[in-house]
């Protein structure tokens, strides 16, 4: 049982205390952007923001979220009104299979919120925890650079 905010709305869940946030997002709230990748906090596919900080939702139990603010990709923007990062990822066609992209965008969003004009090294450094197995890194980097320059 825990109460926290997801994309600005209060959520109360009666899931067990050790239930990962990712399961509540996907299983209960139908917020399916964040993905289950490794389940060990090592691939970044499940990345969401907690209080603005990029967080692996697969290893974040709901017990520690009481009163906190969670933002998922769905909270950044919509198909009609995409966030500048979402628009840039579409324009650069940064996704191949797309499994890592929600996590990539959320980690990039946390970076740009703190540092609107990051250098190349800062972008690469910030994205280290997120893996892409298709190999679209260059397109992902282009998209983040594009969003940062707007």
């Amino acid at each position, binding site marked *: 049982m825990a109460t926290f905010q997801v994309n600005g709305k209060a959520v109360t869940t009666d899931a067990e*205390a*050790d239930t990962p946030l990712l399961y509540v997002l996907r299983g209960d709230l139908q917020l399916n952007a964040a993905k289950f990748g490794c389940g*060990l*906090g*090592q691939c970044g596919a499940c990345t969401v*923001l*907690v*209080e603005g*900080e*990029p*967080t*692996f939702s697969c*290893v*974040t*139990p709901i*017990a*520690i*979220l009481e009163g*906190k603010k969670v933002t998922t990709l769905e909270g950044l923007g919509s198909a009609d009104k995409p966030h500048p990062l979402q628009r840039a990822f579409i324009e650069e066609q940064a996704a191949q299979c797309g499994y890592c992209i929600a996590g990539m965008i959320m980690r990039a969003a946390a970076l740009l919120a703190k540092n609107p004009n990051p250098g190349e090294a800062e972008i*690469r*450094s910030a*994205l*280290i*925890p997120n893996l892409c197995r298709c190999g679209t*890194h260059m397109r992902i980097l282009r998209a983040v650079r594009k969003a940062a320059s707007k």
Partner: protein
Amino acid sequence: MGLVTHELAGVPGEDLDAIAEYAVGLMGTPSEARRARAEALKREPLAVNPRAPRNEAAVIYETTCLPCHDGSRPVPFGGIPLSLSLGLNGESPRNLVNVMVHGLMPAEGETSPMMPGFAGALSDAQMEALVHWLRAGLTDQPPWSGVDKLIAEARAMKPAMLLFPPGGSGTEP
């Protein structure tokens, strides 16, 4: 320290034996109490001190740490029971705090310990309470002080300054 042990892997076996003998010599012969504590830890590494408080930090330990640190999976897919961790038993909580905030970066191209950081998931207050609970609940060591300052320092530190994974020269993608 990971770099040090990584480099030592290339040292001849007899030299490693000599270093180990020297290090054990520095530690001296363990007291009866220390030996008994070690035996108890080997028997029941997950045992919690019954005097540890049943507070929010206990719940954080059970829900956030224990799912990996229950010793049921081999490294790196699971972590060691925290009662056996030097991070909890040392003189300073600095290592423990740094790892909680930033995690452990996996080494490139080889099996190594790894852990996600919890900078986003845990607030300063939650981390501080957890550090004190871990010390009280899983060790027989005296309480720490100045934990809040170390948490602030760890948060201000860039993980790249902290983590030099063995086996790789850099962490750029």
